[in-house]
């Protein structure tokens, strides 16, 4: 009787499973068909279609795309110095923000991983995650009002004779560092957690000062996690155009793409190639440094 029941259930599901059994390639293929199809055909395909327009041009009056091969967009990018300035400004800010966040995040992540009690850890994790749920726009706007001439920062600093940074590139750096900080804290925290306490104890037993332990044991082991966090701080800063718009007059790559995407899509596509190349280069370096094991 039991075997009959089992024999009955050897239909659809079981037989299908049998089809896959032992056939690794079929299994992998079936698993990957969805995600890879979506990402390669759907996403990468869309990107390719967009970027191909970089080799076209646009009619100035009707805005219609002239689908003839031309390199004029790239020539414009290379010849006009303003684009170099904008690109460098964006990359520089992205690097600064990454550095700033790494420096602020590390002590916090270290405390969370190694020194906090169980309860403290839990509270801190929730505490770091909660701001991620508040609207990005509202946070940036809050900074805009904070930085305003009559805003809270000046209100607090003026009595001691100081002055807030106001709007500008400093504001952008400040706000972006603020926005992406949780994205840096969490991977570093995860990475530090993975370092067995026994290693640290061993280092101390061998006579290393806390600073040496930090420098020669903790830092190298947690570095890939820092790089993992930096992927987000770097790429999110590189592509953002809303924050520069709200707290400064400075143009970032995203702003220039945005102002061209409606009326001169070929040129916008050519512009877009720059952050794509920069980001992919960054990702490749990050992978080399082991970040992808920690993301």
């Amino acid at each position, binding site marked *: 009787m039991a075997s009959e029941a089992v024999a009955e259930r050897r239909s659809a*599901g079981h037989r*299908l*499973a*049998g089809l896959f*059994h032992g056939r690794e390639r079929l*299994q*992998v293929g079936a*698993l*990957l068909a*969805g*995600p*890879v199809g*979506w*990402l390669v055909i*759907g*996403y*990468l395909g*869309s*990107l390719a*279609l*967009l970027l191909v327009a970089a080799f076209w041009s646009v009619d100035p009056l009707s805005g219609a795309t002239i689908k003839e091969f031309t390199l004029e967009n790239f020539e414009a990018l290379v010849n006009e110095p303003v684009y170099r300035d904008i690109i460098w400004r964006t990359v520089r800010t992205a690097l600064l923000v990454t550095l700033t966040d790494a420096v602020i995040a590390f*002590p*916090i992540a*270290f*405390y969370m991983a190694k*020194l906090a009690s*169980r309860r403290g*850890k839990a509270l801190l*994790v*929730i505490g770091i995650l*909660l*701001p*991620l*749920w*508040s*609207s*990005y*726009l*509202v946070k940036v706007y*809050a*900074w805009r009002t904070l930085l305003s001439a009559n805003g*809270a920062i000046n209100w607090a600093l003026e009595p001691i004779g100081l002055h807030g940074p106001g709007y500008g590139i400093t504001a952008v750096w400040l706000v972006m560092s603020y926005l992406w900080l949780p994205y840096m804290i*969490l*991977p570093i*925290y*995860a990475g530090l*957690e993975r370092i067995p*306490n026994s290693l640290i104890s061993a280092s*101390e037993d061998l006579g290393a000062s*806390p600073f040496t332990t930090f420098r020669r044991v903790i830092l190298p082991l947690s570095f890939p996690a820092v790089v993992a*966090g930096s992927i*987000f701080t770097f*790429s999110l800063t*590189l*592509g953002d*155009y*809303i924050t520069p718009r709200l707290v400064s007059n400075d143009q970032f790559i995203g702003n220039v*793409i945005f102002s061209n995407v409606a009326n001169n899509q070929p040129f916008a596509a050519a512009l877009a190639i720059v952050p794509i190349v920069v980001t992919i280069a960054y*990702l490749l370096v990050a992978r080399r440094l082991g970040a992808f094991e920690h*993301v």
Partner: protein
Amino acid sequence: MRLSRRSRWLLRAAVAVGLAFIYVPLIVIVIYAFNSSKILEWPPPSFTTHWFTQAFKNEAAREAFFTSLKAGVAATAIALTLGTLASLAVARHRFFGRETISFLVILPIALPGIVTGVAISNTFTQVLEVPLSLFTVIVGHATFCIVIVYNNAVARLRRLSDSFEEASADLGAHTWQTFRYVTFPGMRSALIAGGLLAFALSFDEIIVTNFTIGAGEQTLPIWIYSNLFRPHELPIVNAVAVLVILISIIPVYLAHRLGAEEGGATGGRGAGGGVETEATAVP
């Protein structure tokens, strides 16, 4: 770890300063939400809960909230499916191009949002001739949410020894049964954590949404953006933001608890138990 008293206190101070940095602007938002002045003077002349009642009554805000919920749930569902499938392939098999999958999956979120948004929007409107709508928004969101689920799932699968699955197969279970009774329960909390983070990301996303949404609809971030600069609506926006933060304490707490209960079957390396690290495998 042995640290001098001074170092400990310095570290505590650094943490306090860091947390202050994170929370002061949020506190400012909360204060503004109660600010009775319409043009949001600082310091606030007096306080009121008027804006909160206005927020509840605001039809556009309510609709936008539910639209965001719908988009988030759908996008998360897709991301969960695709992310889990990809993670199973990567963590449990070896094949040509395996290393590239991690790279591929992170691209939609690493590349500038404007590029992703315009690319997807163009493909829909020009190539497929599909009008923009909530559907196109969901497709966009799902695309960059896959990585969040994927990372959490892969991290978990790497800690779950596959000997359990082999044992299950040895005992006569076929592929689906093994997945259903062995693999999935082990992954479940990581998936839930990943799903919640993916939902959070979708809920708050503005740039890709801006390019993929149809004319008649608004997600909450779109509603916020269109009202940010209207002097009469801005205080309501702050109130809405505060409400969203309050409501979101629930899923954040849930994500954390579910992550923390995972302790047992991992056979994990890594430092002491306590908080599960995948719940924090970040977007």
